[in-house]
């Protein structure tokens, strides 16, 4: 890792950058210092998502099913329960209007991080501060029920995502138009093809975000080519809107490079790197390569 660092263009090691953001006195010093100008640019905006030394551990049960009996027996040998550290002192900040990408290998802690940002999981230690209202899309079609019609699903998903009935009614036609499902409004979703299902889910997600901070987990580019293009278009408009802040988890390096202002690389629950998308992808590729060699 150490020898590899030199070859990058503008590298900001994660540790260094974090210390600058978290200590107000040192960041002030750097703002006045011409040498710190490369860091100055990221100090200008308001920080809306602040994650400070967050730790999350999960117990590993060999049998996933938990029961009262297990719990009773485990009281005598509780120390033997194995703990998996999903997030290990993760620290970063996201500014208003930023498109912040997160990449890393499977099991690197990306999705756990997003769940914690969304408030689904609570941190074991550390702080998560979010300044604003959030919409999170951890999966397509959250709240969708195959036994309900498209119309009912739009309402239920919208309500789950925090919209009021009136807001959903006003967006209803847009959602249907975007999903190109005009003829299937009152058809049960279980009769949809998987492509239609995904299109509906994605359209709801696109129109349901009335909040300023979006957490998105790999939901880009679904459906046929035409639909993909529309989705990319929609992403671009989110990116251009400087009030929207996006934290975006993906394995698709192409869209990471295309949309993200800054990218964080995660490896085994730790922050490996934070910097420009170009550098981050280089770091990520090196991690992949290293793992291949072993």
């Amino acid at each position, binding site marked *: 890792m150490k020898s590899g660092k030199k070859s990058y263009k503008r590298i900001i090691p994660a540790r260094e950058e974090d210390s600058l953001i978290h200590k107000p006195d040192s960041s002030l010093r750097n703002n006045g210092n011409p040498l710190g100008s490369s860091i100055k640019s990221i100090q200008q905006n308001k920080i809306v998502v602040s994650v400070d030394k967050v730790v999350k551990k999960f117990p590993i049960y060999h049998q996933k099913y938990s029961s009262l009996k297990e719990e009773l027996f485990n009281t005598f040998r509780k120390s033997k329960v194995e703990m998996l550290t999903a997030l290990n002192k993760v620290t970063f900040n996201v500014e208003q209007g930023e498109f912040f990408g997160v990449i890393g290998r499977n099991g690197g802690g990306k999705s756990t991080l997003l769940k914690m940002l969304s408030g689904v999981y609570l941190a074991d230690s550390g702080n998560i501060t979010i300044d604003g209202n959030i919409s999170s899309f*951890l999966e397509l079609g959250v709240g969708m029920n195959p036994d*309900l019609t498209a119309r009912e699903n739009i309402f239920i998903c919208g309500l789950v995502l925090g919209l009021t009935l009136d807001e959903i009614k006003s967006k209803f036609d847009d959602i249907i138009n975007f999903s190109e499902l005009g003829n299937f409004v009152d058809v049960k979703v279980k009769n949809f093809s998987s492509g239609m299902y995904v299109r509906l889910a994605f359209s709801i997600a696109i129109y349901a975000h009335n909040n300023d901070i979006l957490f998105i987990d790999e939901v880009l580019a679904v459906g046929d080519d035409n639909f993909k293009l529309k989705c990319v278009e929609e992403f671009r408009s989110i990116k251009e809107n400087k009030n929207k802040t996006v934290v975006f988890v993906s394995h698709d390096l192409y869209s990471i490079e295309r949309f993200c202002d800054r990218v964080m690389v995660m490896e085994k629950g730790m922050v490996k790197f934070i910097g420009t998308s170009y550098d981050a992808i280089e770091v990520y590729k090196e991690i992949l390569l290293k793992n291949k060699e072993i």
Partner: protein
Amino acid sequence: MISTNLSQKWQLTWFLAKTDFKLRYSNSLLGFLWSMLKPLAVFSILSFVFQNIFKLSASHFYLRILTGLLLFFFFSECTTFGLNSLLSKGHLLTKIDFPKWIIVLSSTINTMMTFSINILITIIFFLIAGVIPSIMAMANFLFFLILLLMISIGSVFILAPLFVKFRDISQIWEILILVIMYSAPIVYPLTAIPEQYHKYHFINPLTSIVYYTIEGIFENQYPPAYIYLFLTILFSTFFILSLLIFNSMSKKTPEYI
């Protein structure tokens, strides 16, 4: 956290209850008729067994059983259905953060819909039998209905997050429900039990609800005022306690799903 006002939360609660009610019978032939047929079938079986085999009798024996079962069915439906509510909506809870009480409340509202159908049927039976309860008996019934709501919803608030963590709860609860049913004077009058055991029957929260409701409707007899006061304090303490328990337990619920 998604910041929304209370009316949005209510819209979500109502919509979930409505669609769940629809979905519950969506693939069955008779649809929501089942919500009436099931209690009626149980009513027929029990009244047959207890009248013809155990030779129990009292004035308006069938109506007494029907009233008792109406109250009991609400409790048992509400708790067994609500028990599973958080787990069955696990796909939501692990993906998005929204108030978990909405799920629990919508499941109880769902049961209330069935209950209102059942209450209509009971009224029809009363009319056929020509029994019209007095105003006082109605007011008394309403009071115990509120207690029933408190104990049912309160139980669900404790059971639902507990069930997510310990899946044995559903088995235990099935047995407990039977204990609750047969220790309450639903299918037999309390007078059929020797008086010295009555105090044990009143440990069961449904006993006082069922007993005093039936006494009010059929005998026009009401408990003294201090009983009302005592029960109000007892049930509302339980309800508030259940909310506090739910609040602390449900925080970690998504991790156990």
